[in-house]
C-alpha cells in the first residue's frame, strides 16, 4: 500500500487543499484563482530554495575540486553557510550612485530575476505537475529568456559607467550570438515530438530520450546554454581582469544580490530545461505507477547536468571575446543549421511511430536518427581537422616571414 500512497501524493494534497478551500466557502472561479496564485508562489519559492542548496553545494564541490575544504564553519560541514551569507547581503548598504538613470537602474535587477523565474511556469516538474502546459511552451521559454538580454543592457546603460557599458555591450553580443544556436537546436525536440508543449515533449520521450536520438542537438544546446547563462568559460561579462566587474559594477548590497540570484537561477533553470528537452524530464522507472517519483527524477537529472556545468566551470579558462564569437558564428550556427536540415529530413523519412509502438517498431527510427548524427559528427571532425591543419600551415608560414606576432585586440 506504500507505493499507492506515494502515487497519489500530489493528487491527495490537491484534494485536501481543494476541500479545505471549498469548506471555507469559495466559489469555483475564486478557487481556481487561488490555486493559481498558490502555484505562482510555489513556482517562485522553488527556484529560490534550490538556489540556497546549490550555492552551498557548488562551493563545496569547487572546494573539493581545488583540493580545499570549502565552507566548513556554519552548521555541520558548513551546510548552513548560505544563511549568514543572506544576512550579510541584507545588512549591506545599498549605494545609489548620483549619476545613474534611476528608473532603469532599479528596474534592471528586478527584470533579471523575473525573467528567469517566469521560465519555471512551463517546466513540467512531474507527470501532471506543471505550472501551465502552454501550447507554445518552447517558444515561451525563448521569449521570456530574451528579457534577460534587456536587463543586462539596461543595467549597463543606466549605471553611467564606461566599464559597465562596455561589459553590457559585450554581454549582449554574447547573449545574442548564442541565442541563435540555442533556438535552432530547440527546434529539434519540438519537431521530433511534433508539439511545442514541454509536457508533450516529455511524454513523447517515452519512446527514447532525445539525447539518444539527437546527441548533436543536445551538445549544441548545452554549450550555448552555458554561454547564455554566462558561466565559465563564457564568463566574459564579468571578466574581472579586463573590465572592472561587469555590467553590474555600480550595484551594491541587495541590488547586486538580485543579479547574483538571477544568474544562479538562470544557470540551473537551463539545466532543468535540458533535462526536460533531452533527458526525458520527469521520466524514469516506475514513474507511471508513482507520479511523485517524477519530481525526484527531474531534480536528479537537473542536478546531474548542473554538476557538469560546475565541472566545466572550474576546469576551463575563460575564452577571449573573438574566440567566443567565432565559436558561435562559425561553428555552432552552421552546425546547427546543417543539423536542423538533416535531422528534419531524416525524421521525416521514418514516420513518427504510434504512442504504443513496440521496441521493434521503434528501432528503425532510432537507428536512422542516431546513424545520421554519427555521420554528422564524423563529418564535423573531418572538416575541423582540415581547417585546423590549413590554419596551422598558414600560421607556420607567417611565422617564417614575420617573427613578431601581432596581438589581436578584443
Amino acid at each position: 500500500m506504500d507505493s499507492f500512497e506515494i502515487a497519489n501524493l500530489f493528487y491527495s494534497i490537491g484534494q485536501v487543499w481543494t476541500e479545505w478551500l471549498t469548506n471555507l466557502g469559495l466559489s469555483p472561479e475564486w478557487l481556481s484563482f487561488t490555486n493559481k496564485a498558490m502555484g505562482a508562489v510555489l513556482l517562485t519559492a522553488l527556484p529560490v530554495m534550490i538556489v540556497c542548496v546549490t550555492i552551498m553545494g557548488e562551493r563545496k564541490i569547487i572546494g573539493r575540486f581545488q583540493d580545499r575544504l570549502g565552507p566548513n564553519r556554519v552548521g555541520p560541514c558548513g551546510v548552513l553557510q548560505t544563511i549568514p551569507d543572506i544576512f550579510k547581503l541584507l545588512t549591506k548598504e545599498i549605494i545609489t550612485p548620483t549619476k545613474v538613470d534611476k528608473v532603469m537602474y532599479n528596474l534592471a535587477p528586478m527584470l533579471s530575476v523575473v525573467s528567469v523565474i517566469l521560465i519555471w511556469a512551463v517546466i513540467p516538474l512531474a507527470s501532471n505537475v506543471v505550472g501551465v502546459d502552454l501550447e507554445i511552451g518552447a517558444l515561451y521559454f525563448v521569449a521570456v529568456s530574451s528579457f534577460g538580454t534587456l536587463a543586462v543592457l539596461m543595467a549597463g546603460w543606466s549605471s553611467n559607467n564606461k566599464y559597465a557599458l562596455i561589459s553590457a555591450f559585450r554581454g549582449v553580443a554574447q547573449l545574442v550570438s548564442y541565442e541563435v544556436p540555442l533556438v535552432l537546436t530547440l527546434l529539434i525536440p519540438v519537431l521530433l515530438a511534433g508539439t511545442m508543449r514541454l509536457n508533450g515533449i516529455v511524454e513523447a520521450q517515452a519512446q527514447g530520450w532525445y539525447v539518444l536520438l539527437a546527441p548533436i542537438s543536445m551538445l549544441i544546446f548545452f554549450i550555448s546554454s552555458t554561454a547564455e547563462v554566462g558561466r565559465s568559460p563564457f564568463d566574459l561579462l564579468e571578466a574581472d581582469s579586463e573590465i572592472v566587474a561587469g555590467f553590474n559594477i555600480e550595484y551594491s548590497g541587495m541590488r547586486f544580490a538580485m543579479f547574483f540570484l538571477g544568474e544562479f537561477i538562470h544557470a540551473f533553470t537551463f539545466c532543468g530545461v535540458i533535462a526536460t528537452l533531452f533527458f526525458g524530464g520527469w521520466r524514469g522507472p516506475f514513474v507511471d505507477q508513482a507520479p511523485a517519483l517524477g519530481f525526484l527524477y527531474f531534480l536528479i537529472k537537473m542536478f546531474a547536468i548542473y554538476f557538469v556545468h560546475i565541472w566545466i566551470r572550474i576546469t576551463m579558462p575563460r575564452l577571449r571575446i573573438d574566440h567566443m564569437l567565432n565559436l558561435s558564428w562559425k561553428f555552432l550556427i552552421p552546425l546547427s543549421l546543417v543539423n536542423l536540415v538533416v535531422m528534419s529530413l531524416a525524421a521525416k523519412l521514418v514516420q513518427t511511430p504510434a504512442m504504443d509502438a513496440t521496441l521493434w517498431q521503434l528501432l528503425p527510427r532510432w537507428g536512422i536518427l542516431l546513424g545520421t548524427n554519427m555521420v554528422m559528427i564524423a563529418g564535423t571532425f573531418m572538416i575541423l581537422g582540415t581547417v585546423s591543419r590549413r590554419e596551422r600551415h598558414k600560421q607556420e608560414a607567417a611565422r617564417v616571414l614575420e617573427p613578431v606576432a601581432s596581438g589581436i585586440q578584443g
Partner: protein
Amino acid sequence: MTYVVFGLFGILTLGGGILVVTSRNLVRAAASLVLSFFGIAGLYVLLEAGFMAAAQILIYIGAIAILIIFAVMLTQRVAAGNRVAMNSQWPWALLVSALTFALLVYIINIVWPLGIRAENVPVLAADPTRGLGMALVDWGQYVLPFEVASILLLGAMVGSIFIAREQHDD
C-alpha cells in the same frame, strides 16, 4: 476582469507610444518602445494569439529593440539630452494625426459600432499555431510568401551589412 487587463495593457501600449514620440533622451524613448511592445504582446494574449505574443516579445523586445538601442548609442555623440526633440512643424503633425485618428474612429464606428458588446465571438480552431505552421508550407496557401520572406531577409542582411560596414582599406 478581462476589461481591467485590457485597460492595463492598453495604457501600457499607448503610454509607451506617447513616451516614444515625446521623450528627448533617445535611450529612454527606446525603453518606452519596449514598454509599448510589451503592452501589445499582452493584447495578443487577450486575443488568444499566444504565438503572436511570444513572437512579439522575441522579435520586437529581444531583437529589434536591442538593435535600436545599439543604433542610438552608436549615433549619439554626447548624452544628447537637451537638444530639441521636435522639428518646427510639430503643431501641424499633431493636427494631421488628430484628424487621422478622428477619421479612423468615424469609420470604425460605422462598421463596428463602439457601444456594442462582444456577443457570440466565434470559437478558436483547436491549435492555431499548428494550423499556421501547416499553412506556411502548404502549396495552396502561403508557401510563396514564405520563401519570398526568406529572400527578403537575405536581401536585408546583405544590404545592411554592406551599408553598415566600416570601409577597411586592406
